[in-house]
């Protein structure tokens, strides 16, 4: 006869019931250990794929989120599977659908032709935005930051031991200083007792120990002959007043005040693709600024034919359309600078994003010229060109852009060879930077161009 038995494992209380066999060959720590290893591999993959992570769609679409889901490449169970290009992404399902029904929808992922459902798509991991900022923007900083009359930007540098105080938690007691204070006081007290009673130093010390540091009491003890014989001799008491503590303070580097103007073209020619690239770039820029420079001010301006200042929420999540007059945005920024940000007190940065299809490029140039004349710290124009092929750089086609050719005509730029992904120009004299980006993966290069600490072509003043 075959008899099945139910064996109890880990339920010690039931061990008295008949036929119990312990199988303890499952080592629970293995799951935890291997899960940790997997997590490490995810972190590593994110680090290696910064460019892809930066362009990840849902960073913009999931507003107000502290954590985002990012695609993680290269962490799949690779083996030979079917499903060539064009064959992937389909499958057989079950349910009450009719032909033509949409049963699933997800945002498009990167360029690659990874397999869709059925053969396991790209893995996704949930990551903290702050963590991403930390690993991705290690080498960025506001360039050409000048000392101004008033300092207010504080850049946190960690913690440091600052001074010694009489109060604090015992975990931060400064032993050496405390003992020194106690010794100093003990000697003074003993001398006082000695001078009053003409006893020896040892007797004074013993009396003070007996009186727990009270001088009057100590004198009485000696005068009344209550001194106890003791070998402990030279000990001394630590008075509350002797305690010394280390204080720690946030170590900050104090810099001048700075304001960043984020200007964005939301006109009709800005297709969803362009807006996505632009918002993605500005989103990372703003998140990084907020994290790195706590007190930097950021002003958001969007324009069509006219410009208006908006709050961050509207800037990133609102939509608009209309004609394109870039000068309106620069005029607006110029006006705000003139009225609110005196140049001897403020570092001023302007970043403008557009597809460059401007109605009045010469007018825009004169507004930009006016801004440059103010000698602001940096002006950066990022042109978004997702539709144009500029991989064959020689025959780069500016499309309908009027603004970039006009800029290149009006000022002299040095073409940066920072990266072949994207086109980057720099004019060190007027601190004017141009970038042309086509693809999500160019966002990272563009940020390096504007804010990279080790930018090879930028002359620091």
């Amino acid at each position, binding site marked *: 006869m075959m008899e099945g038995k*139910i064996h109890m494992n880990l339920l010690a209380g039931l061990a008295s*019931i008949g036929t119990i066999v312990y199988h303890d060959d499952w080592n629970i720590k293995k799951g935890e250990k291997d899960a940790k290893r997997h997590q490490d591999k995810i972190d590593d993959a994110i680090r290696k794929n910064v460019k892809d992570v930066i362009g990840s769609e849902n960073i913009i679409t999931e507003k107000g989120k502290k954590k985002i889901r990012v695609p993680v490449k290269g962490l799949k169970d690779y083996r030979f599977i*079917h499903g060539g290009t064009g064959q992937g992404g389909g499958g057989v*399902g079950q349910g009450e659908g009719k032909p033509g029904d949409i049963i699933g929808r997800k945002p498009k992922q990167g360029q690659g032709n990874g397999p869709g459902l059925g053969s396991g798509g790209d893995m996704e991991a949930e990551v903290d935005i702050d963590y991403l900022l930390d690993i991705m923007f290690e080498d960025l900083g506001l360039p050409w930051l000048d000392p101004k009359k008033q300092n207010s930007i504080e850049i946190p540098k960690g913690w440091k031991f600052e001074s010694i105080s009489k109060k604090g938690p015992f975990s931060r007691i400064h032993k050496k200083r405390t003992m020194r204070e106690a010794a100093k006081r003990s000697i003074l007290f003993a001398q006082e007792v000695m001078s009053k009673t003409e006893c020896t130093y040892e007797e004074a010390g013993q009396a003070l120990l007996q009186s727990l540091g009270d001088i009057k009491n100590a004198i009485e003890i000696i005068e009344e002959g209550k001194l106890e014989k003791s070998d402990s001799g030279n000990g001394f008491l630590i008075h509350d007043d002797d305690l010394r503590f280390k204080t720690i303070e946030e170590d900050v580097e104090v810099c001048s005040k700075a304001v960043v103007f984020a200007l964005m073209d939301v006109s009709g020619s800005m297709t969803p693709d362009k807006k996505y690239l632009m918002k993605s770039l500005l989103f990372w820029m703003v998140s990084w600024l907020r994290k790195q420079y706590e007190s930097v001010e950021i002003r958001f301006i969007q324009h069509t034919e006219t410009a208006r200042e908006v709050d961050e929420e509207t800037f990133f999540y609102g939509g608009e359309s209309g004609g394109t007059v870039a000068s309106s945005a620069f005029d607006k920024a110029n006006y705000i600078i003139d009225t609110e940000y005196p140049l001897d007190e403020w570092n001023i940065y302007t970043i403008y994003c557009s597809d460059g299809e401007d109605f009045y490029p010469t007018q825009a140039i004169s507004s930009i010229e006016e801004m440059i004349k103010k000698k602001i710290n940096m002006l950066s124009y990022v042109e978004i060109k997702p539709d144009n092929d500029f991989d064959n750089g020689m025959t780069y086609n500016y499309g309908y852009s009027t603004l970039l050719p006009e800029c290149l005509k009006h000022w002299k730029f040095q073409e940066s060879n920072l990266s072949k992904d994207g086109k980057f120009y720099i004019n060190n004299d007027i601190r004017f930077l141009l970038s042309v980006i086509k693809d999500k993966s160019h966002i990272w290069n563009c940020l390096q161009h504007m804010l990279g600490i080790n930018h090879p072509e930028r002359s620091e003043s």
Partner: protein
Amino acid sequence: MRNYELDRLKKIEARIYEIAKENGLEFCPIEFDIIPEEKMFEIMAYGMPGQISNWKYGRDYERTRTIYEKMGAGLPYEVVVNTNPARAYLMKDNTIALQALIIAHVVGHVAFFTMNKYHAENDSNIASRLSAASERFEGYERKYGIDLVEQTVDAGHALMLHSNPWLIEENKSEQLDRIFEKMKKKKHDKTDTVFSDFFEDDSQADIEREKWNNALYMKLRNKTPIEPMEDILRYIIDNSRVLSDWQKDILEIIRSWGQYVWPNIKTKYMNEGFATFWHEKILKQLFKEKLLTDTDHSECNYSNSLVKAKNPFAMNPYLIGSVIWEDIIKRWNKGTHGDTFNEIMNHEEKINFDDKSMKGNEKMFKVLRTSNDWMFMNNFLTAELVRKLDLYMYVKKDNVFVEDLVITDKEAEELRQIIVRSFSHSGIPKIFVRDGNYNNSNELLLIHEHVGADLNPEYAKKTLEHIQFLWGEKCILKTIKLGVKDTYVAYKESKKDISFDLNL
């Protein structure tokens, strides 16, 4: 679980075995462990006690735990380890009703393992071999570093399904002899006609024949592998010049694990369907005998509905498998199958047909013993069932920002054929080692036999990287298909970089 509950469960368990046996199921003894939920997640991820350590298992463990935390209790988790005695697991906090469902389901699985011919050669020592290996591998991690061990394990995992237990295992000289004899026979059977005596005298013919044989033997002896070899891991373990002994140890173990997994892959739908069919049947009987209460009944129904839920994106083997089994029994009981039935043109007559042959059970056991999923689907997934199960095919369609999955208008019969085709060779591409000394420079040439579906290029490239790591020299994978030839190449440029040329 309290004492009285355990007593009750034991009674139910004993009755489940009896019911199963009354119905003709044969099965080896089963040992159940009652375990806390974390352990269950681990068992599900690792698949076997003593499984080796790897990040993939950690990932699955984490995933199962997350799903459980989101979905809450009531999920009918079950794992059966296919050894003798079989091992199975019950979650500590499950209700009696759910435990009964799982025990009945497990009995179905174990009967399947015991009776199905594809499981006849199961390695019953696999659990203890894995467990011992797991300890050795931990030692390797300390000695050679986790990265190198992991790289070896990952490469082994990538190839483990290219070594199924039904391939002939022989050493090189056995293989040489077999092929030599085969080719010799083929050659001489052709030339030895009744007329050959008229043209040459015997001794001359013998000398010629001997010469030819010798040349063939020399040629075969220098060939590696002598004939295209499907067991990629076997070939690499035996012939790679860069693998250390400890790496070979890892690959051998993973190859065994792959062979253990194969029968399960080959019979997944049959097996899950069979277990589901039987747990439903057994539970029904338990209710009838009042061993389960009305409360238990509703709990069982809920859990059963989760097991058999329709998945809009994938086929549910529990549902599809059990419905096919039910259909087989029904059709063979009524005789609604075969040519005589199919030739009936009258709709009314067809619907009411019943020859009372009652061959359902007999047929079920016959199919159970001899079939695998491909045969099961090909023979018993009818167009009728495709419609009944609401199966559809969907494709990915690109929109501006999103990818939509849209249902196609495939007819039931066409869909039936697509589904059946996907079960050929259990969906695993046919790839052979063709030459281990390609270009006369120890390069490894692999051939992909194209049978209807392309390889996924991303996966092919990455898998070739794994092979290259184990082989040490340049690896080439060619797809053979009329008109089109895809070629992937993996080779080491420096110690770190591996680059690829696609479509050479």
